[in-house]
C-alpha cells in the first residue's frame, strides 16, 4: 500500500510535466501575447510598437519557447509562480490567494448541501425503487440538471434580487460590511451566499442522488442484506446499517472526483453574481494572455485532478479490506 502510493506519486510527476508542457505550448503558440494586449489601446503607432517591444523584453517573451518553459519550471520547483503578465505586475500567488477563499467556501458549501440532500434522496429512491417517490424525485432532479445555470440564475436575480429585493446578488459582502456587528456580518454573508450557492449546486443533485441510488440498488441485492432481513431486523435498520454503510466505498470515490471542483469555480456564475472567484480570474487571464497566472491555475487544477484520482483509488483499499494494491 505504501509502496503503491509512492509509485503513484512518482508516476504523477511525468503526467504533471506533460500537462504543464502541453498547456505552456498551446497558450504560447496561440496568436496574441500579453504585450500586444496591453498596447492595443495606445493610439500613437510608433509609441505602441516601442512599448510593445520593451514589454516583450521585460516579460522575457523574446526568448525561444523552450527556454521560457525550462525557466518557468525552474521557478516552479522553488514554489514561485512568477509575476503576473498583466499591467499590475503583482506576484501570481498573491492574485490567486485572494480568490481562493471565495471559490473554496462556495464550492465546499455547495458540495455539502448537494450531498446532504442527495444521499437521503438516493437511499429512499433505492429503497422504493420505481415507486412514486423514485420517479418523481428523479424527474424533478433531472429537470433541474437540464437547466443551464445561467438560465436559472437570471430569473432568480430578477425576481428575488431585484423585484422583491429579498436577497443581495452582487459580491460577497454588503458595502457597510465593516461596520456590522459579528452577528450582522454572519447574516450578511449568509444572505450573499444563498442565491449563488443554489445556482452553483442544483445541477449536481441529480448526478449525486442517482449515483447513490445506483450503488444502493447493487448492495440491496447482496446476500447479507437478505440475511439481515431474514433475521427480522426492521427495514430502516437494514437499509441504513447494513446497506448504506456498504455504499460508502463508491461515495468515497465521489469525493476524489469532487476535489478538482473545489478550486475550479464557474466563470458564468461568478460574472453574474460579481463573485471574486477563480473561474473569472482564469477567463480574464485567458483573454489578456497572462501566461504566468494561467500556468499557475493550470498547475493547481492539474495537481488536484491527479490527487483526486489517487485519493479515490486509495480510499477503495482503505474502506474495503478485500482490495489490495501492491
Amino acid at each position, binding site marked *: 500500500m505504501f509502496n503503491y502510493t509512492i509509485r503513484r506519486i512518482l508516476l504523477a510527476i511525468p503526467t504533471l510535466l506533460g500537462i504543464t508542457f502541453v498547456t505552456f505550448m498551446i497558450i504560447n503558440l*496561440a496568436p496574441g501575447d500579453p504585450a500586444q494586449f496591453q498596447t492595443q489601446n495606445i493610439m500613437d503607432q510608433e509609441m505602441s510598437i516601442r512599448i510593445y517591444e520593451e514589454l516583450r523584453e521585460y516579460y522575457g517573451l523574446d526568448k525561444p519557447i523552450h527556454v521560457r518553459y525550462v525557466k518557468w519550471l525552474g521557478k516552479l520547483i522553488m514554489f514561485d509562480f512568477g509575476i503576473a503578465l498583466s499591467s499590475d505586475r503583482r506576484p501570481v500567488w498573491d492574485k490567486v490567494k485572494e480568490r481562493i477563499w471565495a471559490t473554496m467556501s462556495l464550492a465546499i458549501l455547495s458540495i455539502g448541501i448537494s450531498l446532504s440532500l442527495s444521499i437521503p434522496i438516493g437511499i429512499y429512491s433505492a429503497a422504493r425503487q420505481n415507486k412514486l417517490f423514485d420517479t418523481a424525485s428523479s424527474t424533478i432532479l433531472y429537470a433541474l440538471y437540464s437547466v*443551464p445555470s445561467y438560465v436559472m440564475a437570471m430569473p432568480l436575480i430578477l425576481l428575488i434580487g431585484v423585484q422583491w429585493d429579498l436577497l443581495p446578488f452582487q459580491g460577497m459582502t454588503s458595502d457597510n460590511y465593516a461596520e456590522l456587528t459579528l452577528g450582522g456580518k454572519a447574516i450578511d454573508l449568509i444572505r450573499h451566499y444563498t442565491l449563488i450557492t443554489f445556482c452553483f449546486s442544483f445541477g449536481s443533485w441529480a448526478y449525486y442522488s442517482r449515483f447513490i441510488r445506483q450503488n444502493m440498488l447493487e448492495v440491496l441485492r447482496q446476500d447479507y442484506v437478505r440475511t439481515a432481513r431474514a433475521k427480522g431486523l426492521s427495514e430502516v435498520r437494514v437499509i441504513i446499517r447494513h446497506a448504506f454503510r456498504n455504499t460508502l466505498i463508491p461515495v468515497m470515490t465521489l469525493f476524489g472526483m469532487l476535489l478538482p471542483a473545489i478550486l475550479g469555480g464557474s466563470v458564468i456564475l461568478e460574472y453574474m453574481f460579481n463573485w471574486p472567484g477563480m473561474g473569472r480570474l482564469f477567463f480574464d487571464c*485567458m483573454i489578456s494572455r497572462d501566461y504566468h497566472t494561467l500556468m499557475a491555475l493550470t498547475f493547481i487544477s492539474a495537481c488536484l*485532478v491527479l490527487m483526486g484520482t489517487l485519493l479515490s483509488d486509495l480510499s477503495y483499499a482503505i474502506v474495503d479490506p478485500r482490495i489490495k494494491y501492491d
Partner: protein
Amino acid sequence: MVVTQDNLKEITAEMPGMVSSGQRSRPWKRFRKNRSSMAALIILGIIILACLISLPISAKQFQQQDLDLNRHPPQIIDNLAPFGYDILGRNLLWRCLFGGIVSLGIGLAAAGIALMIGTAWGLIAGWYGGRVDNLMMRVVDILYGLPYVLLIILLKIAFEPKLISLLNKIFGTGQERAANIIILFVAIGGVSWLTMARVIRGQVLSLKARPFMEAARATGLPTRRILIRHLLPNLVGPVIVYATLTVPQAILQESFLSFLGIGIQAPVPTWGSLAAEGVKAVNTVVSFWWMVFFPSLLLGVTLLCLNFIGDGLRDAFDPKTRH
C-alpha cells in the same frame, strides 16, 4: 490484432450477427418496460422529427429579419410566430427549430467521437495492459488535467483561420461558418471521449479476468476472434449507455460556451446561444420572457429526455439492477 478506428467499424458492423437474437432483445425488452424512459424516447423523437421536417423552411427563415417586429411577443394570428421575435426581429420559431439541428448535431458528433476514439482507446489499453496501458492512460490523464475551456478557445484561435483558408481553397469563399462549426464539433468531441476510454478500459480489465475469457484463450482462439466474439458483445452495454449520456453533456457544454461568446458564432443559432441571447436581453424593466423561455424549454426537455433514456439504458443493460 491491433484494433484501429478503421477495423473497429468493421468489427462493430459484424456484431449483430454474433450476439444471438435472444441476448440482443433482452435489454430492449427491459428498456421498453421502463415507462419514463419510453416516454422520453417518444418526446425526443417528436422534437427531432419537428426539427428535421421543418429544416427546408427553417434553414431559409432563421436569419430573416423584420426590424419592425423586434422584441414582438408570441403571436399566431397575424404571423406564425408562437415563440415570438428576438431583438433583431427574427422569428424565434424558425431559429429554435434550426438551432435544434445544430445543437443535436453537436451532441451526436461528440457521441460519435467518444464512441470511436474512446472505445478503441480503452479497448487497446485494457487488452494489451502493461506499458501500452500505462502510456495510453497517462495521455488520457494529461488531457483530463488540461483546462477544457482554455483548450477550446485556443483550438479555435489556433486552427480556425487555417481551416477557413483551407475550406475556402476547396469550396470557394465564405466558409467561415462551416469552419467555426467544425472546430466546435472537434473541440467538444475531443474532450468527450476521455470518460468513455476510462470506462471501456475498466470493463476490459475486469472482463479479461473472467473465466470465459480464459476458456476462450485456452481453446486457442485467435485474438481477433476473442475480441470480436467474446469481448465486444460484452462491451455493447456500457458503450451505448455512455454514448447516450455524452449527447446531453456536449449540448450543455456548447450552451455554456455560447454564453461566454465562444460557441457557434451568430447568426447560426443553437438552443444554448438562443437562451444566452435571451438571458442577456431580459432586464428588470421589461421582461422579454419568450426569448429565454422557449429555447430553454426545448433545450431542457431534450436534455431531460436524453438523460432519462441513458438512465433507462443503464438499468436495461446492467443485470445487477434488475428487479
